[in-house]
């Protein structure tokens, strides 16, 4: 068992990160959290999380950026919104999780072996290409990029899907792809402008 | 310097004035453009007060009373409502834009609403720009003087008769 120092110094806090977190859509109420833990209790996935959602909220508002962005918690959120509807302070926990996911992807600090960020990125790429998502291709792509070994364990499922006619290897595409790309590109340009 | 509107407010003693006190006690921050005149009941506010405030240079007038059904004097605020509806029509005819005169029900517990209302009104009146009735009066006076001079020189007897 490794011995790690758990104490934190004030210098370990990143005040800008805390400010960023509270300024995100849905994060407005972050500072009102009374740490009741109902978010964690209602969360169907908190049993696997390294930090429960409640702890993550506290870490975020205190500015412990590294702990927050490198936590499994944000990637284990399945967006079921149970926390958001239970929160007695109307904190939009799910939206905060989204914001943290985006930030982690942006900063490249997400756990590499974890396929969720890869899925999110692939999802984005596929939509830019076709406008729609083909789940089959998405899954294949995902496993090839992360853990092709795991792919083998899924072959049973694949065969079942084929048997029941629920699998398609042809990308489903919209007709006016340029229209969609114009929209997405406009936002991209907008973003760089904002960054400047 | 950007335009800072001058807003005259008439607050009833029991609800809105108390709410403004509460906003103070709660240290809520709002725009410093409003000058409050205390009356016992919003029903004391004669439409002439509002007109007079505009005439003397207010860019906006805010009237605050108790919520309908909550008047300390049973029903003064209903009378206010009736009068102010009429006044609104007159103000429109005079070319005073919507938003320069506002009637709000703010209870003694609603300090926050004082803040929100004042800030919102200041922002809206600021966007409308200065009203400057005194300036307009001067212009009108001048116009009338000029007209008078003009008319007098042209056809003095007839106009004198008409007046």
């Amino acid at each position: 068992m490794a011995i790690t120092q758990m104490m934190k110094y004030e210098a370990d806090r990143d005040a800008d990160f805390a400010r960023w977190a509270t300024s995100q859509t849905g994060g407005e109420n972050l500072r009102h959290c009374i740490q009741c833990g109902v978010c964690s209790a209602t969360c169907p996935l908190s049993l696997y999380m390294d930090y429960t959602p409640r702890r993550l909220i506290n870490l975020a508002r205190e500015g412990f950026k590294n702990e927050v962005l490198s936590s499994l918690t944000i990637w284990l959120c399945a967006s079921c919104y149970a926390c958001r509807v239970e929160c007695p302070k109307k904190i939009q926990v799910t939206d905060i999780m989204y914001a943290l996911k985006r930030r982690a992807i942006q900063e490249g600090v997400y756990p590499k072996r974890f396929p969720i960020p890869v899925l999110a990125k692939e999802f984005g790429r596929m939509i830019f290409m076709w406008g729609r998502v083909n789940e089959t291709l998405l899954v294949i792509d995902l496993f090839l990029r992360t853990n092709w070994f795991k792919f083998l364990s899924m072959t049973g499922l694949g065969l079942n899907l084929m048997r029941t006619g629920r699998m398609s290897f042809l990308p489903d595409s919209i007709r006016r792809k340029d229209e969609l790309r114009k929209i997405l590109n406009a936002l991209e340009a907008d973003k760089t402008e904002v960054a400047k | 310097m950007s335009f800072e509107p001058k807003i005259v407010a008439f607050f009833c003693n029991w609800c809105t004035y108390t709410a403004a006190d509460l906003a103070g006690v709660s240290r809520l921050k709002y725009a410093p453009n409003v000058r409050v005149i205390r009356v016992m009941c919003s029903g004391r506010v004669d439409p002439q007060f509002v007109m007079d405030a505009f005439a003397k240079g207010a860019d906006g007038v805010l009237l605050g009373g108790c919520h309908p059904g909550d008047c300390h004097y049973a029903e003064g605020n209903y009378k206010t409502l009736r009068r102010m509806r009429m006044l609104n029509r007159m103000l429109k005819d005079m070319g005073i834009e919507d938003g320069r005169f506002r009637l709000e029900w703010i209870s003694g517990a609603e300090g926050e609403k004082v803040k929100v209302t004042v800030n919102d009104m200041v922002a809206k009146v600021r966007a409308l720009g200065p009203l400057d009735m005194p300036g307009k009066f001067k212009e009108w006076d001048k116009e009338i003087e000029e007209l008078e001079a003009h008319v007098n020189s042209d056809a003095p007897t007839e106009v004198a008769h008409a007046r």
Partner: protein
Amino acid sequence: MADNNANKQQPNGLPRIGFYICHCGSNIAGTIDVADVAKYAAGLPGVVVSRDYKYMCSDPGQEMIAQDIREHKLERLVVAACSPNLHEETFRKAAAKGGLNSFFFQMVNIREHASWVHEDKKAATAKAKDLARAAVYRVRFHKALEKQQVPVDPNVLVVGGGIAGIHAALTLANAGKKVTLVERESTIGGHMAAFDKTFPTLDCAACILTPKMSAVKSHPNITLWTYSEVSKVEGYVGNYKVTVKRKPRYVIEDLCVGCMECIDACVFKEPKFADKFNQGLGKRKPVYIDFPQATPKVVMIDPETCIQFKTGKCKKSCAEACDRKAIDFDQKEEVKELQVGAIILATGFKTFDAKKEPHYGYGKYPGVFTALEIERLVNASGPTSGEVVLRDGKHPKAVGIIHCVGSRDEKTNKWCSRVCCMYSLKLAHLIKEHSGAEVYNFYIDIRAAGKAYEEFYDKLLSEGVHFIRGRVAEVTDWAMTPEEEGKLVLRVEDTLAGFVRRVPVDMVVLATGLEPQADAQEVRRRFNIGCGNEGFFQERHPKLAPVNTFTDGIFIAGACQSPKDIPDTVAQAGAAAAEALVLIDAGHVELEPNTSHVVEEECCGCKSCVPLCPYTAITFDEAKKKAVINEVICKGCGVCAAACPSGSIRQNLFEDEEIFSEIEGVLGK
């Protein structure tokens, strides 16, 4: 203190005005440049003295004003300080002390309306100058006025017969005042009568309450009207006329001695109907008494369940059994009128409806109870004689108490209900004592701020009650492990441990919070007082006038003002009684002279004012063809003054020229 007081001569006969601005420590001076305002005011027409001072309301501050009035022959006084709601009276007195009529004074609110609400110092100072100028312009037109004195009726009405109303009524009655206590239910005692023990001392609620209840009943100075409601309140401080509806209980109160023979004789051999006093956990007959110590000890008939009322064909064995002939099926509602000088409202609270938090399963799982139900269960005189059992009669082995149900939650009630932590600790103790069950408290924070409260918490900790810090997400019956089968499972994050736990129990207790009574809004309108945003009655000042309201002569006590426990309630009831005594023993009240009057020669007799007055203070003198205002009835709203087309109605302190000059002042240069 700047010296702005060169001996100035008064031009054109303006009254000589003294202007004073208060620093209020740094409360005003921290934001507003008071010296600059004082200097500015010195240059305003009529101002002969202008000073700034650290604390105007202090004795030296007031003394300074009085002295200046004498020395500088001041004829008007303006003080810029806090809200007139706080210190208007103080400075009126200072004026009088200097020999000036109190109403030659105008107050400028630059604290609540300026320094506390603005950050921009320049703008705040400019605003203070505008307001000061307005007051200086206005005060010129002030007139010498006298306060009107009216006698105070020495009788008091107390509304609500819970512990607050009981204590207030007894205090006043012991001071020799005649009190009428009106209670909506059939007995006094309120919520406290339903409690078993009281925290933190664990003395039995009945043992300390029932002596007070009987004292109310037997007190010569108290008239007790239960099963009655106030329907109308008219008049003003010292002189209220109150209408009370006495609902029929179908039993003649003066004849009934509470022997309960009628209950035994009822055609229903067994109690069959849900017993409200026992939270529906027990049963009663159509003729019943809430509990043995009910006060007055008079039975009631419930027309909803009584066969005589439903069919008209009962053999009326109850009436036969009563040898005093107290049962009266034809009893009608009675309407009574009262004259009182003061009113104390002690209308209490209601508990949060647990069904509004459906994920806690109240009404769905029989093992879920509210705290009030448990109060009855652990009570020796309750439906189970103090045995803690589930609805199916089984004994719980594990009990979970969920705190903050309907408290500290933006979805239901935002506030902390203040008593739930402590009563949950009490119930935890009692449940453990009565049943030996494992007891779990699920709390967010333990709020044990009160005398001996923390010690009580400590006692509970030592008793081995579990404390899990976390808000329960759900009470459910789906099991994950064999030991969860057949249990109610609570899912909660143990926030101190940092992980989620599932705790199986047999009984769940919901510590429901305190809310305003369902009809609090109607009641406050009836009594012409205010409610805060939460719906509790609004006190005049949160710290300094906690039992006063904005309506003079009407006081509030207990949980109708905000959630509070028994000690605080009793303290507040005592305070309300004392405030009422102050009013009554003074014998008279002084009314603000802000009434309206008609200047007869200017009245054109149009009558437009007559129907406007909500108090019918305006009549029309047909002989003179003039309107007449009765200043005793007038409450000073000024609605008539605003409406008078000829301008013949003047409202004291708010005359047209006073307001016009104030408008000119705030807008002037």
